[in-house]
């Protein structure tokens, strides 16, 4: 793996995580449980898509073939997407959406905290800007996990079910791929072995306050980071890319 390839893949992964999660969150717009939360979740969707634009633009620059953020978002096949499996999971209901958001935010927070110290100045700069937003996201999703976990019996059951279903995707967040090892070694990316205990501690702390219990699984699902996705991503992209694909080469 060359330095350039690694940077490209890494920026793509960061961009794809943000883009696919932003796409999922934006499905809520107009359908939230209450107007205030519709607005709040749309804010997070806006931040995610905004972050995706920064990372994908940078990925295109690193690659040096003139691909723009839109070329990368709209003209790649699902096997070329590098997002983790967690972010492509369906919204289902507010419980799944909040559990998915919390698990991702907790990871994403420590990830970006480390990335602000990257030897690559652009990575450090995008991470610093995003970290402010992610700090808010983590506070928001933690509060909702606690509120609903410790709310009514019904909300507790729904949250526990969502946690049971989504937990299997949490391991991939801190899974060290060869790319992660390379990026950590070069001090360009995050050291996931160093990150993992802090992430796990944060999750433990919030789940405990929420009176929820994390399942103890012998196995986790992974593959998104290397382009092996769940069935859901194909559908997300079929919708997201539809106009661009129907009218190739146009300006919008």
């Amino acid at each position, binding site marked *: 793996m060359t330095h350039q390839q690694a940077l490209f893949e890494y920026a793509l992964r960061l961009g794809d995580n943000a883009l696919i999660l932003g796409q999922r969150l934006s499905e809520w717009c107009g359908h939230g449980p209450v107007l205030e939360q519709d607005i709040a979740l749309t804010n997070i969707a806006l931040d995610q*898509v905004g972050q995706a634009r920064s990372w994908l633009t940078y990925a295109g620059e690193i690659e040096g073939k003139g691909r723009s953020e839109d070329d990368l978002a709209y003209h790649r096949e699902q096997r070329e997407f590098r997002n983790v499996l967690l972010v492509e999971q369906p919204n289902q209901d507010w419980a799944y959406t909040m559990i998915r958001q919390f698990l991702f935010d907790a990871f994403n927070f420590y990830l970006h905290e480390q990335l602000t110290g990257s030897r690559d100045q652009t990575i450090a700069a995008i991470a610093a800007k995003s970290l402010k937003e992610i700090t808010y996201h983590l506070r928001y999703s933690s509060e909702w996990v606690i509120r609903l976990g410790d709310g009514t019996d019904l909300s507790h059951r729904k949250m526990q079910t969502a946690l049971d279903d989504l937990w299997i995707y949490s391991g991939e967040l801190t899974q060290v791929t060869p790319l992660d090892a390379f990026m950590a070694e070069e001090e360009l990316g995050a050291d996931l072995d160093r990150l993992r205990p802090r992430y796990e501690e944060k999750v433990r702390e919030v789940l405990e306050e929420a009176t929820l219990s994390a399942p103890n699984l012998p196995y986790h699902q992974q593959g998104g980071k290397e382009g092996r996705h769940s069935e859901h991503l194909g559908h997300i992209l079929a919708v997201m890319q539809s106009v661009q694909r129907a009218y190739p080469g146009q300006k919008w």
Partner: protein
Amino acid sequence: MSDNQLTKHFQDQIDQEVKIEPKDWMPEGYRQMLIRQISQHAHSEVIGMLPEGNWISRAPSLRRKVALLAKVQDEAGHGLYLYSAAETLGIDRDELIAQLHQGKAKYSSIFNYPSLTWADMGAIGWLVDGAAIMNQVMLTRTSYGPYARAMVRICKEESFHQRQGYEILLTLVRGSEDQKAMAQDSLNRWWWPALMMFGPNDEDSVHTQQSMAWKIKRKTNDELRQQFIDATVPQADYLGLKVPDPDLKWNDERGHYDFGPIDWDEFWQVVKGYGPCNRQRMRDHIAAHEEGAWVREAALAYAEKRAARLETAVA
């Protein structure tokens, strides 16, 4: 003071352009008219999120996706300001939403039309937000203080939405033949429903006279409609799109555009609930509300638990 004196004092205030505030005495009819109008306005902002929300996941560039998300989010914000303004009249949001779901309260019929292509995101911003602005700019001077102030905030965002919509169409008409055709088709579908947004002709409008006397409205439906047409036709010309009205023609004598007859049958059909998306919009809104019930209940239960725990901790 007797009721007669109160009524006279109230009308004097209105005539002297003094804003009516929530604590002021007001005739029951004024309060009811405002509740009806402000809640209808609030519901329109919120139901209006649906046709545009329909295209967020398919926005053809990331820049457009962000802009559309932010736009629809603004509309949610408008809904909030307006529900708050309505609440100053002694009715709460839950009740207003219940009235909507029971079909007692209305929302703007324009949102019962479907958004079928990406160009509709342009046409809605340009024409629907554009028509809304005509009405809302007038309402910044409405006699009820909280409503007027909500409008000032909202108007700034609406003109931004309108420019954004126009710019979407501008990009399309400068693009391929397909894109230009998409823009024309969209104008064809949205033009007449946009004109209907101003409501029936003045002679058929039941509330107009009283509303004008109370200075809730300050221009009639027909005045606003004409103003909208006069402002919008040159914009269509600049786009190189054809307004779908064979009778449309500048009238030098009147200093206005003449335009063809509006299909009032279609207007009443949609108002009465038989438009293309009436049932779908209501079903979606009710579904979101009902599916959110457990979330709202749990949030409330948690807040109460927390307050109780704090109290025990203090004691």
